[in-house]
Every structure is written in structure tokens, then in C-alpha cells.
């Protein structure tokens, strides 16, 4: 079946602009995660959605970052007033529920000039 998809695959933006990154999880997966991976680094947890519960936003690095998940499916990560340090690959993952194996999308490479 279809895996996790993300769009766009690449995004180049100017400092100060807003960007929106999209994630389509695997159908039937109730849990959705956003991570950030800087070049050559590990994964930094950003936010977690589970069904209709309030999301865990504890990993968001600043109030410029926000995310929503509509209808328990598609999620959008928004970064306002982008800074150069926001440049990274943003990965989305989904799973059946919080305790289960996570399946990752291909990522969005964000470059802030």
C-alpha cells in the first residue's frame, strides 16, 4: 500500500518568509510525528498527534513553529518568519498508535537563504 508522503520534497525560501510542509500518513495510522534532522545529525522530535487528542508540542523549538492535523489524517507543519537555522530536513512519520513501529516519509529539505 501507499506509504507516508510529504510535500514539497525541496523548499528554498528567503529568511523571514513563512513555509508550510505537508504530510500524508499511511491510511489507518492514528499516530503522526514530525521530526527535524540537521545535516549529519540525529532526529529531533518536534510534535506528536494521536487521534483526536491534544498534540504533544513539547519539541517545537520556538513559537514560530506550529502544526495541525485535519480530520485525523493530513498534517501541516508551518514555520513562520523562517531563519537560517531552520534549514534542515523535516521528516514525518506515522504509526498505528503511539507504541508501534514508525514509518517515515521521504522528508522535505528546507533551505533558508
Amino acid at each position, binding site marked *: 500500500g501507499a506509504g507516508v508522503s510529504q510535500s514539497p520534497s525541496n523548499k528554498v525560501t528567503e529568511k523571514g518568509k513563512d513555509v508550510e510542509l505537508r504530510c500524508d500518513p499511511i491510511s489507518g495510522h492514528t499516530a503522526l510525528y514530525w521530526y527535524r534532522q540537521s545535516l549529519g*545529525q*540525529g*532526529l529531533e*522530535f518536534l510534535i506528536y498527534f494521536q487521534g483526536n487528542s491534544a498534540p*504533544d508540542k513539547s519539541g517545537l523549538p520556538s513559537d514560530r513553529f506550529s502544526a495541525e492535523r485535519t480530520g485525523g489524517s493530513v498534517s501541516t507543519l508551518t514555520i513562520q518568519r523562517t531563519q537560517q537555522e531552520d534549514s534542515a530536513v523535516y521528516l514525518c512519520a506515522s504509526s498505528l498508535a503511539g*507504541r508501534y*513501529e*514508525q514509518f*517515515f516519509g521521504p522528508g522535505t529539505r528546507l533551505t533558508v537563504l
Partner: protein
Amino acid sequence: ELKVEQNPLFLSMQEGKNYTIYCNYSTTSDRLYWYRQDPGKSLESLFVLLSNGAVKQEGRLMASLDTKARLSTLHITAAVHDLSATYFCAAFYSNYQLIWGAGTKLIIKP
């Protein structure tokens, strides 16, 4: 707070050799994951280890878990070039979070 340490962080080896990547975690966790990431690609799940003494094997890779020692290992047997990648371990924490190691970049030379 759970912390996960992998070592080595970088490993260059010859084809045909055996080697082990170690993943230590600092507090109790009841499941451990191994993922592979090829350059410029996303993460691919390799193994999920659910209990003490669990051992799983896929081709030339074998993963094990010792929950008492808080240690998981990923053993590579008779390495081949196609196994060159970055390998991450992650330990399960709280109700849904994975705490990730920094990754081991593995280069296998022909």
C-alpha cells in the same frame, strides 16, 4: 530522562569483515528500534526488539536486546558494500516517544 548513546559514530570497514554497533540507553525501556538511512533518503525500519534476550536477524544483520544491561547491538556479518548507510537506534519512552541515538555512519569499502 532517557538518553541513548550509540558507538561508534563512524565506522569504516572492509568487505567481508564482521563488526558490531552498540546502543546504550540510560533508563528502563521496553522496546528498541533499529533504522537504516541511506544518503539523502528517509529512514527504513530494520528491527523492533520487544523483550529481554530478543534476537532478530535479516540477511547479514542481527540485532539483540539486553534490557538488564540497557544495551542493544547490531551485528554485521561478512559486510558487503550495499550495507553502507547510517544506522540509528531508538528506545521507546513514555507513551509514544522514541529517543534517538546520534546514528552510526557505516562505510564498507570493497
